[in-house]
C-alpha cells in the first residue's frame, strides 16, 4: 500500500511535466487545427539539446531551458514556415504525412548525431530527497513539477493578458474575423507553433534531471501528450494540468501495483477509453 501511494506521488509530479508537454500540443492543435505527430520528437530534441548544453557549456540541466527554449522556438518557426504553412490549405492527410515524415526525420537525425545508445546527465543541482513521514519526495521531481506549473501559469497569463496572446486566442476562435480586425494569420500561426515547440524545451530540461534520453522516445511522449490532451478536452488549461496528473498517477500506480511493463498499457487504455466514451474530454469547451 505504501509503495502504491509512493508511486502515486511520484506519478503526479511527473504528470505536471506531461501537462506542460501537452500544453504545447494543445495550443498548436487548438489554434491552428494542425495535427503535429512530431511533437513528442520535439521533446526528444530538447532533451538532447539539454544534454549538449550541459556537456559542452557546463550548464546545469535546469538552467539549460534558458538557451534551449529559444533554440526550440527557432526550430518551431522553421518547421512552420518550411513545412506546416504549406499544408494548411491542403487536406489533412497531407498534414499527417508531412508531420509523420518529420517524426521519422527527427528520429533518424537524432540517431545520426547522438547514436542509438541512451544518454543521461550525471548530476544536477536539484538532487536529493525530502522525507515526509514514510514517503520520499525526490527533489528533482518536485522542482520539475513546480517549474512546470509555473510555466503553465505563465502561458495562461500570456494568452489572457498580452496582445500576441489575444491574437492567438482570436485566431483560434474565428480566423476570418480575427483577420478582419488586423491579426496577421501567418505571424500568429508561426508564433503559436514556435511557442508550442519551445514549451517542450522547458519540459526537456526538467526531464533530463532524472531521466535518460534515446532517439526512439519521441513516440512515447507524443502519444502521452495526445492522451493528456484527449482526457482534458480542448481549450482548458487548468484541465490539462489535472489530466496530466491523472495520467502520471495512473502510470505510477500501474508500475508499482501491477507490472512495470504495464506503464504504457494503462496510458493507452485511458486514451482509447476516453476517445470512445467521452470524446470531448473531462473539461472540454468545444
Amino acid at each position, binding site marked *: 500500500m505504501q509503495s502504491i501511494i509512493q508511486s502515486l506521488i511520484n506519478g503526479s509530479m511527473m504528470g505536471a511535466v506531461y501537462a506542460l508537454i501537452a500544453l504545447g500540443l494543445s495550443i498548436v492543435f487548438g489554434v491552428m487545427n494542425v495535427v503535429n505527430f512530431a511533437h513528442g520528437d520535439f521533446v526528444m530534441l530538447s532533451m538532447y539539446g539539454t544534454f549538449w548544453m550541459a556537456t559542452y557549456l557546463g550548464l546545469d540541466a535546469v538552467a539549460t531551458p534558458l538557451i534551449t527554449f529559444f533554440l526550440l522556438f527557432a526550430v518551431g518557426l522553421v518547421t512552420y514556415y518550411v513545412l506546416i504553412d504549406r499544408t494548411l490549405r491542403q487536406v489533412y492527410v497531407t498534414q499527417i*504525412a508531412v508531420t*509523420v515524415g518529420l517524426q521519422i526525420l527527427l528520429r*533518424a537525425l537524432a540517431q545520426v548525431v547522438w547514436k542509438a545508445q541512451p544518454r543521461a546527465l550525471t548530476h544536477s543541482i536539484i538532487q536529493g530527497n525530502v522525507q515526509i513521514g514514510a514517503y520520499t519526495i525526490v527533489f528533482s521531481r518536485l522542482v520539475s513539477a513546480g517549474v512546470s506549473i509555473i510555466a503553465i501559469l505563465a502561458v495562461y497569463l500570456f494568452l489572457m493578458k498580452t496582445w500576441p496572446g489575444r491574437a492567438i486566442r482570436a485566431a483560434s476562435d474565428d480566423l476570418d474575423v480575427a483577420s478582419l480586425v488586423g491579426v496577421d494569420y501567418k505571424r500568429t500561426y508561426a508564433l503559436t507553433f514556435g511557442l508550442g515547440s519551445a514549451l517542450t524545451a522547458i519540459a526537456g530540461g526538467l526531464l533530463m534531471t532524472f531521466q535518460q534520453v534515446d532517439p526512439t522516445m519521441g513516440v512515447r511522449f507524443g502519444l502521452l501528450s495526445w492522451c493528456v490532451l484527449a482526457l482534458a478536452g480542448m481549450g482548458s488549461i487548468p484541465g490539462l494540468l489535472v489530466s496530466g496528473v491523472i495520467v502520471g498517477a495512473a502510470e505510477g500506480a500501474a508500475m508499482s501495483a501491477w507490472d512495470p511493463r504495464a506503464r*504504457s*498499457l494503462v496510458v493507452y487504455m485511458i*486514451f482509447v477509453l476516453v476517445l*470512445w466514451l467521452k470524446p470531448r474530454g473531462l473539461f472540454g469547451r468545444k
Partner: protein
Amino acid sequence: MKNGPKMSLVVALVGAVLALLVPLVFGGSQYNMVLVTTVLLYAVLATAWNIIGGMAGQMDLAAWAYLGLGAFTSGTLLLRWNITPWIGMLLGGLVAMAFGLMVGFPLFRFGVTDVWYALSSSALVEVLRVVFLMWEDVGGPVERYLPFHNWSWYHMRFGSYIPYYYIMLALLGVALFANYRLKRTRLGYYLRALGENEEAAEILGVNARACKMKALMLYAFLVGMAGAVYACLYGFIHPSFFSGFNSLEVAILGIVGGMGITYGPLLAAVILVSGKEFLRSTLGGQLEAIYLVIYAVVLIVMALFKPEGIATLLEEPYRRLRSYFAGGEDVQPDTRSV
C-alpha cells in the same frame, strides 16, 4: 471508352508477368530475395490499407497490429498443435478481422473520426505490443522460433526465399483484386463518398458505420493473412511485430502513393521501400540511420509537392498509351481504370 477495361487488363498482365520473372533476376542472391519480398509485404499492407484509408478516408495507423495478430495466430497454431500455416493464415486473418470488429464497433459507434481515429489506432498497436509482451503463454520477451524445415509446404518453411516471394505476390494479387473489385461495387462507391465527405454521404443515406466496419474488416483480414506469411518468412514470432513505427510507414505509403488509387500504394512501396533498402545497404555501413534521413526527406517532399499521390504522375503517359492503341484518337481519361 470501350477500350478501357481491356487496356488496363493488358497493363495488369504485363505487370504480373514481370513480377513473376523477378526471381530470375534476383534469385541468385537470397539477400536480394528477402528485400524484394519485403517490398512486396509493404505493397500488400499499403494496398490493403488503401481500402480503409484511401477509400473510406479513415486514417488507420494500426496495420502492424493486424499483422502481428495474424503472425501470432498462425505461429502459435503451428507451434502448439502443428496446424499448417495455410490454415493458420486463414484463421490469422479471421482473428485480425475479429479484432478489427472489436475496436471498430465502439470507434464508429461513438463517431471517433479523423485525427482521433488515427491516434487511437496508433495507441492500439502499443497496447497489443505490451499485452503480448506480458502474456507469457503466447508471447513474452523471448522470440519463439518456428520449426525449421528445409522444404516443407505443410509448414510453409523453405530453405530459400523464392517460395515466399510467390506467396506474397499471390497475396498482393488478392489485395489488388479486392481493391479493384470493391471500387466497382455499391460498397466501394459508398466508401469513396465517405472518404470525400462523411456528413454529406450520411445525409444522402449512406450507412457510414456499416460501410466503415466492412472496410476495416476486409483490410484487417488481408493484413492478418500477410502476417501469417511474415511469421513463416522470418521464422519466429515476437511482440516487436506490433510496431507503431512500421504502421505509420504503411499509412504514409498509402498517402504518398495516391489515396484510393488501386495501384498507388503498390507504386509507392516499390519505389520507396526498395529505395530505402538500397540506401540502407549502400550507406548503412558508413553512417547508421542516414538512409532514414534521406528516406524521410523524400517522403516529406513527395507529400508536399504531390499531395494527390505519385500515381497521378502515371496518368498522362497511360492516357497517351491508350490513345495510341485506340488508333490515334484522343481518349478521355477514364476514371474507372485508375
